[in-house]
């Protein structure tokens, strides 16, 4: 009909008039048919004014809904009609509102915490896991993570996440993160959207995230949305608090090893808020008198200690309801120091200083703007730095005597590794209608890598020979690698109908380094099909690429671990992951899920056999080899997020293998071998029970199969370069013997299990409240393996050899006191 009218219209004026009238009529009809309006706004906590992420905003009449984004904003486009909105979030009383939608609406909501209400709001605390198109993603309320029993009374976000299926810890007490068979460097840790390279304190016993400063945590283990990229195995997206916009609040706590202070509030008006958190360990202060007492002599003085600290700061300014500016800052560092002063003779003093420092700095500014009710924009500029520095300084001073003139010398040696990233990115959320949520954006990162620099500096002075001095100043392996990372993405969360929803997208990334450009096109897809009330099946696929590696020689997060980029010789890592699962929400009982995955990884990097960061003039590129890996497993999770009894039970069956068989790059003779943290079974049970408003209890029990380790259980004679055929063997091996292991990770440590408990005692005062946390780590004092080593003991009674297991944490009670005001 249209084509006919068009054809006629080209011939006569009357025809043209008819065509235009017909077109206008059709457009008007179409507009009337699709008359829609958009409700947009934000959702905040009624007490603090803090924006809430992931709040469900749903029209109960049409069943259409939206979730608030990372800035607490939502956009919901609905047909003009009577709307019955429900705004609900875990731990908050839901808000209901009914109105007639006749125009675009701007609506902001404040939710009241159920803790504040002192009631249990069952319906509001449900999380629609089964309905989301996203799989392999877990959003755990920060309060839940804080309630998990902890080591030394120090709540730790990463260690709590290790209790989820598919996430493994490294060794005992370690905050290392191993997701679905991936390595520790394959996790992207985002702090307010900016990568954080080192997330460990104290060799990995604690993570760099101060829970007081954290608002929201989401972990993706697979089926990654297209806006994430750069790592193979997981994304941990951490958002920090904006700060209370009503009045000044804060909390101070002191635990077994650290003290913390958190302050937040408005500056002048509600438009500007701040949040400032700090944490520092204090064992070095307390032990100083002991060290002094034990070590100090007239001719010898020792000062030594270790501490870590971190500071989080955030400033938020609201220009208008549509425009906000966020400025965040994080600085965290670990420091080990030793100062030794020795009086060698009456006239000569020697000073030896040993300092090791490692840590991150992250600074970012983000402008969040509502371009239209359907389009949100985020512009971010950020800087992130990770550096470690091992420094040794040796000084001698000799005073002038009758026999000789004064002399002095100073020797400095520094080992430095550093990454500086400058990031600029733009992200957009576009909601054309309730069935689509489109995200798109791009980013640019300027990387400056200095993987390893060793500096030596010697300065000697003698008054003997014409005041002569002697100077050496040199650097070894001082290589700076500059690289540019580019990324663009587009994704859509599309509700095809009530039963089917998919999230599809593509991430286009590239990395330019040493005149080489590595482009990648990474498709992402995940979807769910509702099979019934609360029952769904989901499946997903993700292709991920990683342009940097962490060279690590031990299971413990050490400052000697090197972050290195891909180069013209080292290709990017990539992984394909497929996953599928079934999700079921059993009303008023719990949520259940079963997920299976298979992941194939390529271009993984390892040190060559026998190579380490240490003791060779070779550069790091010459010390590493590339290989492949694969992992598969099944994860079961039953979780209850509402009621007095909450928690989860998780079980993981998994296998993770590695193979380095490329010519000249063989490890384990090119045969496959288990990955370092390949474990067959992991079980975790996490339970919290609220007795009343004053007391709550929690307990965890974890079990995991033994970790793999490489042990050399045989010794054999070393070949001698001897031409003498009458030289007999060297029976004792004095001329050298070698160790033989049947393969990489050929030994299994004993199984690991442990129970922790904790109790929180709350008390409300007139202007403040206090919480005393009493926790016991490793309740039944299980001697869990930390490492296995070979022991050889020669005594007058004879020789005794044994394989010895070292356990580091026995039963450890701890107390923490928190004052909230």
């Amino acid at each position: 009909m249209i084509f006919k009218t068009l054809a006629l219209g080209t011939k006569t004026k009357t025809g043209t008039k008819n065509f235009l009238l017909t077109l206008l009529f059709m457009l008007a009809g179409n507009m009337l048919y699709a008359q829609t309006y958009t409700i947009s706004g934000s959702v905040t906590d009624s007490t603090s004014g803090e924006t809430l992420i992931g709040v469900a905003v749903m029209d109960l009449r049409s069943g259409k809904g939206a979730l608030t984004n990372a800035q607490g904003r939502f956009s919901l486009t609905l047909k003009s009609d009577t709307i019955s909105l429900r705004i609900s979030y875990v731990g908050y009383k839901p808000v209901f509102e009914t109105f007639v939608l006749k125009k675009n609406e701007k609506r902001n909501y404040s939710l009241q915490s159920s803790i504040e209400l002192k009631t249990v709001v069952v319906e509001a605390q449900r999380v629609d896991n089964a309905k989301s198109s996203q799989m392999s993603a877990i959003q755990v309320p920060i309060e839940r993570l804080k309630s998990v029993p902890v080591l030394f009374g120090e709540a730790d976000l990463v260690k709590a996440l290790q209790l989820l299926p598919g996430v493994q810890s490294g060794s005992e007490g370690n905050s290392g993160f191993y997701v679905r068979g991936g390595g520790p460097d394959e996790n992207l840790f985002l702090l307010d959207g900016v990568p954080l390279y080192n997330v460990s304190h104290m060799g990995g016993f604690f993570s760099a995230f101060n829970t007081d400063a954290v608002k929201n945590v989401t972990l993706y283990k697979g089926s990654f949305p297209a806006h994430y990229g750069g790592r193979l195995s997981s994304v941990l997206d951490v958002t920090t608090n904006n700060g209370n916009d009503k009045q000044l609040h804060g909390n101070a706590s002191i635990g077994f090893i650290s003290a913390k202070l958190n302050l937040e509030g408005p500056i002048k008006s509600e438009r500007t808020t701040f949040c400032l958190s700090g944490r520092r360990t204090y064992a070095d202060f307390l032990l100083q008198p002991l060290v002094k007492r034990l070590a100090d002599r007239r001719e010898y003085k020792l000062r030594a200690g270790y501490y870590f600290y971190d500071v989080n700061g955030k400033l938020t300014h609201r220009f208008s309801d549509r425009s906000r500016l966020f400025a965040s800052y994080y600085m965290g560092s670990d420091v080990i120091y030793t100062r030794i002063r020795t009086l060698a003779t009456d006239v000569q003093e020697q000073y030896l200083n040993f300092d090791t420092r490692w840590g991150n700095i992250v600074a970012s500014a983000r402008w969040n703007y509502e371009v239209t009710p359907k389009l949100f924009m985020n512009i971010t500029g950020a800087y992130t730095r990770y550096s470690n520095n091992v420094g040794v300084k040796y000084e001698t001073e000799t005073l002038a005597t009758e026999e000789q003139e004064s002399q002095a010398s100073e020797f400095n040696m520094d080992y430095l590794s550093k990454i500086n990233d400058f990031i600029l990115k733009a992200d957009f959320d576009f909601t054309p209608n309730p069935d689509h949520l489109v995200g798109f954006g791009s980013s640019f990162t300027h990387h400056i890598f200095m993987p390893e620099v060793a500096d030596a500096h010697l300065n000697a002075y003698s008054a003997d020979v014409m005041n002569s001095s002697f100077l050496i100043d040199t650097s070894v392996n001082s290589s700076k690698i500059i690289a540019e990372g580019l990324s663009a993405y587009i994704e859509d969360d599309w509700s095809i109908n009530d039963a089917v929803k998919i999230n599809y997208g593509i991430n286009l990334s590239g990395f330019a380094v040493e005149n080489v450009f590595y482009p990648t096109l990474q498709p992402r897809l995940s979807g769910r099909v509702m099979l019934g009330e609360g029952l769904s099946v989901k499946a997903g696929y993700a292709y991920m690429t990683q342009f940097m590696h962490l060279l690590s020689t031990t299971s413990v997060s050490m400052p000697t671990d090197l972050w290195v980029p891909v180069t013209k010789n080292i290709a990017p890592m990539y992984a394909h992951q497929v996953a599928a699962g079934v999700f079921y929400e059993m009303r008023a009982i719990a949520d259940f899920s079963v997920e299976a995955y298979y992941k194939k990884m390529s271009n993984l990097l390892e040190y060559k056999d026998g190579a380490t960061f240490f003791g060779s003039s070779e550069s790091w590129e010459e010390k590493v080899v590339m290989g492949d890996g694969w992992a598969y497993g099944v994860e079961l999770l039953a979780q209850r997020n509402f009621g007095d009894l909450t928690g989860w039970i998780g079980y993981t069956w998994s296998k993770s293998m590695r193979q380095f068989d490329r010519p000249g790059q063989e490890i384990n003779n090119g045969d496959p071998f288990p990955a370092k943290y390949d474990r067959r079974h992991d079980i975790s049970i996490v339970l919290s029970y609220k007795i009343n408003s004053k007391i709550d209890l929690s307990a965890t029990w974890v079990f995991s199969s033994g970790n793999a380790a490489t042990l050399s259980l045989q010794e054999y004679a070393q070949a001698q370069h001897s031409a003498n055929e009458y030289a007999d063997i060297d029976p004792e091996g004095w001329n050298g013997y070698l160790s033989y292991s049947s393969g990489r990770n050929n030994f299994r440590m004993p199984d690991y299990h442990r129970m922790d408990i904790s109790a929180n005692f709350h008390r409300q005062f007139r202007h403040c409240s206090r919480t005393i946390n009493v926790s016991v780590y490793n309740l039944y004092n299980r001697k869990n393996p930390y490492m296995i080593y070979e022991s050889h003991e020669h005594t007058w009674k004879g020789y005794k050899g044994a394989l010895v297991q070292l356990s580091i944490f026995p039963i450890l009670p701890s107390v923490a006191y928190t004052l909230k005001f």
Partner: protein
Amino acid sequence: MKNKISFILLLSALLAMAMNLASCEKIVDFDIEQTERHVVVNAFPMCDSLLFVNLTYSRFFLDNQTFLPVDNATVSIDVNGTTFTSASRNGANYLFNYTAAANDSVSLRVSVPGHDVIVGGTRIPDFPQMLPPVAEIDTLQPITQGNIIFTINDPDAENYYYVYIMQRDSGSRWNQWESKWDTIDTVRHAYFNCLNHEVTAPEVNSIEGLMDYFNALLFTDANINAQNYELTLSLMMLKDTAQNPIMHEYTLVVESMSREAFRYTKEVLASQGLASYFAEPAQIYSNLSSGLGIFAGIARREYPLTFTYKEQEEE
């Protein structure tokens, strides 16, 4: 003040208790299979020397045993198509009536009851082509700086080299000169360190793959193939040590190696370095089909070092 002291004492006691509890150790069991012995073949067939093969058993690391010789093996070699069976045995050494020659292609077969047959093969390299070294001391100080300078004429082929210095005092047993002061009668006499070396070759400032391990240089001719190049090793020495070659003898050893010998030696030396304490335990390379050890050809030149003084020459 009293409270403060009490607090510190209490805290110290708590920490001490925690540290004490923390050092929990216990003995771990192991599978009996892991205690089974392996046959170990060790042989560097050397150019212009009678060929022999050393056979021992490995030992479980907790057993305080010696390395026991294998005394019931059947050992044969095939040289350029001709098979030889071991003629005699001296302890763990199985001897052959055959003197290895450059470019011989040698394969080995070892059969030990209760173990899989072990086979391996190698090529005997030619002697390193080089000029005799010059060893000189050039200062008047009692502790003197010195150099050992020698030139290698690298043939146009894939070659591997191993350079080290042997030393002995007063007719005692030869030992490899380690990276430290030789101490004789509590007097420090000489210091040698391969870390301080220089390479001089046309258009080349360094040798690819040159490694210094325990005072030995191990390198390939990857970027100096078919060139003449000069190596300078530096040392420190007491004047009287250099002047008394009978009391203090030093010998420069230069070996050309087969590829198998190079890889084995490199991995052995690397495994003994300080860095190995931070690394995963690694299996040392073996070119034997189902056993441990090495069967790899080498060719060796030895040059006794006579130190000369520059100042003497000037006088």
